[in-house]
C-alpha cells in the first residue's frame, strides 16, 4: 500500500451543500429493524425513506445473517403460548426485560417469518436434508433448536435475508439515502421536546448535509458500543455489532428530550473484546454450537447436567426439559460461569464445577468441541446450517476454516476455557466491560405504539430498552413501521426551523476545521473509554460518578473542539465518537440515579451496598431537560400492563393497514 498518501479522495466533495427531501415516514438506520419497518410502513400506504450510514444491502448487526428464529411462540408447532413465552423471559430477567417488545416478538415472529419466506427466504427443510432428525417436524418441515419438545425456536437459512429484504423495499418504492449518517432529530418549529418533524444527516462519501422533512420518524439505529473498550487498531473478529453501531439514535433522541431507561446496566463481558477469537469460531457449547459435546485433551467427555443437576447420558437429553420443567429458555453457557436466570427456565449445560475438577486432575486442558462423535444431524446442523447462516459465520468461519482444512467429522475445535478464556470469547485485556454488546441493554422508553414521549418519534430493534436480537428487530420494526404509517395518516408535516438546522450543520461540519493541536476520532474514543473504565465500571459511588461526569465534560469542552477529520469518512467516524461520548454521559447519569446496588443489573454502588432492595425494583428513567439538567423518574416493573389487551387491537389494525397499497414515492425536493 505504499503510495497511499498520494491517493485522491474518490468521491466529489460537497461540504456546505444541502440536499432536502420530504417523506411521510423517515427511518433512521437501515438494518434489520429499519428495513422491516420500511416494508410495513410502505405497505400501509406511507411514503418511506431510509437514511442508512452504510449500504442497506448488508448493513446492520443482522446484515450478514441469522440462524435462530427464536421465541417464535406463534409457530404452529410451539407448545408455548406468546404470553407464557413473554412472562418467562421477563421473569428470567427479574422484570428487567421489555414486556412490550418481547410480546410483539413472541406473538408475531412466525407471522413475520412467513413474510420472509414469501420474499424468498429459506425457512424450512425443503430438500429434506434433515429428514428423520428429532428436531425436524415432518409436516411443516420446520427445524427446531434447543428445546425439541416445545419447539419455539426455528432454525433458518438466514445468511441472505438482508439482501432479500432490501430488494423487497426497492420493489415497494422505498427511497434509500445510503451512506448517509443521521446526526440530529428536528422538532416542530425547533422547540425542545416538541413533535418530531424530520432529521438531518451527513453523506459519508461527499460530506453533503441532508435534511429530511417527515411526519413520523422511526429510530432503528443500534446500541452504543466502545463505551468501555476500544482498540484503535483492532475492531475485532468477535464483534457482534459492527463499527457503525455506536448509538447515534440514543444521542439524537437524548438531545431533544426523549426518555431512556435501564441505561445504568453495563456488564463485565468479553463480547466487546477487540482481541477475542471470531464469534462461533472456537469450541463451545452455546447458542449456535448448542448442544455440542466438549472433551478434554485426552478425549474425556465433559458431562452435561440438567437444571436439577442430574447428569445426562445422551445427546438427545440435552435438548429436552428436565423432570418437572415445562420448558427451558436456553441452555449451554460456559462451563466456568453459571447461566444467568432462574432455575425453572434453565436448560441443560456443562457441569459448573469443571474448573475445580480440572484443578484436581480429573480433566486435562485444553478442551475441544467434538462434533465427530455426535449424531449426523446434530453435526450437520451445527456446522453448515447454524455456523454458516448466523451473522458473521458464513465467510469468516465456515469458508475460512474449511479452506484451512477443518472437517467437522474429523476435527475438534479448541475451546479457550481456562486459558484466560471463557468459552466462546475470552478476556485478554483489563476492564473489558460493555453496555450494548451482549444481552438486553438500556434504551428508548416507548408505549405500546413503540412511540417515545416525543410525539412522532418511534423506536424499533436493539435501541428499544431491554430488547435484543434479530427477530426482535424484525418484529418490532414491522410493528413500528405500521404504527408510524398510521400516525402519519392523521398528521401533517410540521414546521422546520432554519435556526435548528443551521446550528446542526455548523456542529456537524466543525471537525473539518484544521487545528495545529488536533486529535483524531480514535484518540477521542480511547479517552472516553478510559474515563468510563475508571469511574463508571466495576465499582461506583457518588464520588467516582461525579468524577466521570467531570472528566467527560472536560473532554467535551476541550478535545471534542480539537478533534479533526480529513474527509467525509473520518467526519462520520468523528461524529460517531461524539455520540459515544453522549451515550457515556447518559450511562453516568443513570448510574447516579440508581441509588442501590443490583446483582441482577450487574450494578454495584459502594455507597448503597444493599442488593436489590424492594423499593428499587423499578425502571429508572432519565431525560435530558432543556436547561442542560437531567430529570429522573421511574416506572414500576411490568408498567406495560396486560399483554394481549394492548397488543391485540393494535396488531389487528396493523395487519389491516398493511393490506392496503398506494401512495407515491418520496420526493427529492432539490
Amino acid at each position: 500500500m505504499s503510495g497511499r498518501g498520494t491517493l485522491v479522495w474518490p468521491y466529489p466533495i460537497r461540504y456546505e451543500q444541502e440536499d432536502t427531501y420530504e417523506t411521510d415516514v423517515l427511518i433512521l438506520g437501515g438494518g434489520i429493524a429499519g428495513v422491516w419497518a420500511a416494508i410495513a410502513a410502505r405497505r400501509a400506504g406511507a411514503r418511506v425513506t431510509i437514511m442508512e450510514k452504510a449500504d442497506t444491502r448488508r448493513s446492520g448487526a443482522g446484515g450478514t445473517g441469522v440462524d435462530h428464529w427464536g421465541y417464535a411462540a406463534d409457530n404452529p408447532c410451539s407448545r408455548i403460548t406468546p404470553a407464557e413465552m413473554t412472562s418467562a423471559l421477563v421473569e428470567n430477567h427479574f422484570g428487567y426485560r421489555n414486556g412490550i417488545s418481547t410480546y410483539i416478538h413472541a406473538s408475531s415472529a412466525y407471522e413475520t417469518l412467513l413474510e420472509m419466506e414469501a420474499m424468498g427466504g429459506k425457512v424450512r427443510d425443503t430438500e429434506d436434508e434433515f429428514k428423520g432428525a428429532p428436531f425436524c417436524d415432518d409436516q411443516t418441515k420446520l427445524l427446531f433448536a434447543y428445546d425439541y419438545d416445545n419447539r419455539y425456536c426455528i432454525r433458518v437459512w438466514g445468511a441472505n435475508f438482508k439482501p432479500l429484504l432490501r430488494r423487497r423495499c426497492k420493489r415497494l418504492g422505498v427511497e434509500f439515502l445510503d451512506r448517509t449518517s443521521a446526526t440530529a432529530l428536528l422538532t416542530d418549529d425547533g422547540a425542545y421536546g416538541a413533535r418530531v418533524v424530520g432529521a438531518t444527516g451527513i453523506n459519508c462519501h461527499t460530506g453533503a448535509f441532508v435534511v429530511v422533512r417527515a411526519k413520523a420518524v422511526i429510530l432503528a439505529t443500534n446500541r452504543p458500543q466502545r463505551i468501555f473498550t476500544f482498540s484503535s487498531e483492532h475492531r475485532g473478529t468477535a464483534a457482534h455489532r459492527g463499527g457503525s453501531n455506536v448509538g447515534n439514535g440514543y444521542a439524537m433522541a437524548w438531545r431533544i428530550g426523549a426518555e431512556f431507561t435501564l441505561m445504568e446496566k453495563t456488564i463485565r463481558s468479553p463480547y466487546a473484546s477487540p482481541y477475542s477469537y471470531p464469534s462461533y469460531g472456537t469450541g463451545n457449547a452455546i447458542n449456535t454450537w448448542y448442544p455440542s459435546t466438549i472433551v478434554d485433551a485426552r478425549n474425556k467427555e465433559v458431562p452435561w447436567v440438567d437444571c436439577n443437576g442430574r447428569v445426562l447420558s445422551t445427546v438427545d437429553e440435552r435438548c429436552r426439559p428436565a423432570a418437572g420443567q415445562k420448558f427451558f429458555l436456553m441452555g449451554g453457557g460456559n462451563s466456568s460461569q453459571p447461566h444467568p436466570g432462574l432455575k425453572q427456565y434453565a436448560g441443560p449445560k456443562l457441569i459448573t464445577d469443571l474448573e475445580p475438577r480440572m484443578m484436581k486432575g480429573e480433566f486435562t486442558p485444553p478442551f475441544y468441541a467434538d462434533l465427530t462423535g455426535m449424531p449426523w444431524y446434530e453435526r450437520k446442523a451445527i456446522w453448515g446450517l447454524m455456523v454458516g447462516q448466523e451473522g458473521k459465520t458464513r465467510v469468516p468461519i465456515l469458508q475460512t476454516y474449511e479452506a484451512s482444512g477443518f472437517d467437522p467429522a474429523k476435527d475438534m475445535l479448541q475451546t479457550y476455557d481456562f486459558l484466560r478464556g471463557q468459552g466462546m470469547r475470552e478476556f485478554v485485556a483489563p476492564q473489558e466491560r460493555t453496555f450494548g454488546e451482549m444481552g438486553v441493554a438500556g434504551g428508548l422508553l416507548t408505549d405500546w405504539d413503540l412511540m417515545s414521549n416525543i410525539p412522532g418519534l418511534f423506536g424499533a430493534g436493539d435501541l428499544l430498552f431491554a430488547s435484543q436480537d434479530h427477530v426482535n428487530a424484525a418484529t418490532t420494526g414491522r410493528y413500528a413501521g405500521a404504527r408510524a404509517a398510521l400516525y402519519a395518516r392523521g398528521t401533517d408535516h410540521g414546521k422546520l426551523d432554519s435556526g435548528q438546522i443551521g446550528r446542526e450543520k455548523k456542529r456537524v461540519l466543525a471537525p473539518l476545521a484544521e487545528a495545529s493541536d488536533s486529535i483524531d476520532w480514535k484518540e477521542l474514543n480511547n479517552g472516553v473509554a478510559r474515563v468510563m473504565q475508571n469511574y463508571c465500571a466495576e465499582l461506583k459511588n457518588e464520588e467516582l460518578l461525579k468524577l466521570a461526569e467531570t472528566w467527560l465534560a472536560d473532554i467535551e469542552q476541550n478535545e471534542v473542539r480539537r478533534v479533526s477529520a480529513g474527509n467525509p469518512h473520518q467526519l462520520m467516524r468523528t461524529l460517531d465518537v461524539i455520540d459515544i461520548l453522549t451515550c457515556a454521559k447518559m450511562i453516568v447519569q443513570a448510574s447516579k440515579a440508581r441509588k442501590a446496588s443490583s446483582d441482577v443489573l450487574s450494578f454495584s454502588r459502594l455507597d448503597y451496598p444493599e442488593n436489590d432492595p424492594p423499593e428499587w425494583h423499578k425502571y429508572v428513567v432519565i431525560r435530558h431537560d432543556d436547561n442542560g439538567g437531567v430529570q429522573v423518574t421511574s416506572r414500576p416493573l411490568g408498567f406495560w400492563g396486560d399483554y394481549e389487551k394492548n397488543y391485540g387491537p393494535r396488531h389487528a389494525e396493523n395487519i389491516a393497514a398493511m393490506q392496503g397499497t398506494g401512495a407515491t414515492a418520496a420526493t427529492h425536493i432539490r
Partner: protein
Amino acid sequence: MESSVLRAEPNRPTPGRPIIFNPSICNACNTCVTVCPEDVFIPSPVKGESPIVLYPEECWYCGVCVDDCNRPGAIRLSHPLQQRARWKRKATGEHFRVK
C-alpha cells in the same frame, strides 16, 4: 547498482491486510466497495485494478465483500494472527490452525 529513494513511511495500522484480493480473478467491479458495512474500501484510481483497503483497522471481518463478490476467489479474508483458531484431528492427534 542504481541508487533508489527510500521512502519515509509511517507504520501501517495492524492488522494491515484483513482482506486480500487476487488480481487475476478480480475484475474491479467494486461491488465490495458498495456493500461493505464499514466502508473500508475505496475504488482504485487505476481503471481495472482491485479496490484499495483504505481503512483496514476498521474491518470487522463480516465477510460480506467475499459473500457478495461475483468472482469466486477474487477476495479472501485474512484473520489477525492472534485470532486464528486452532483444532485437533481426533484420530491422529495432529494440530492445525486457520491459515
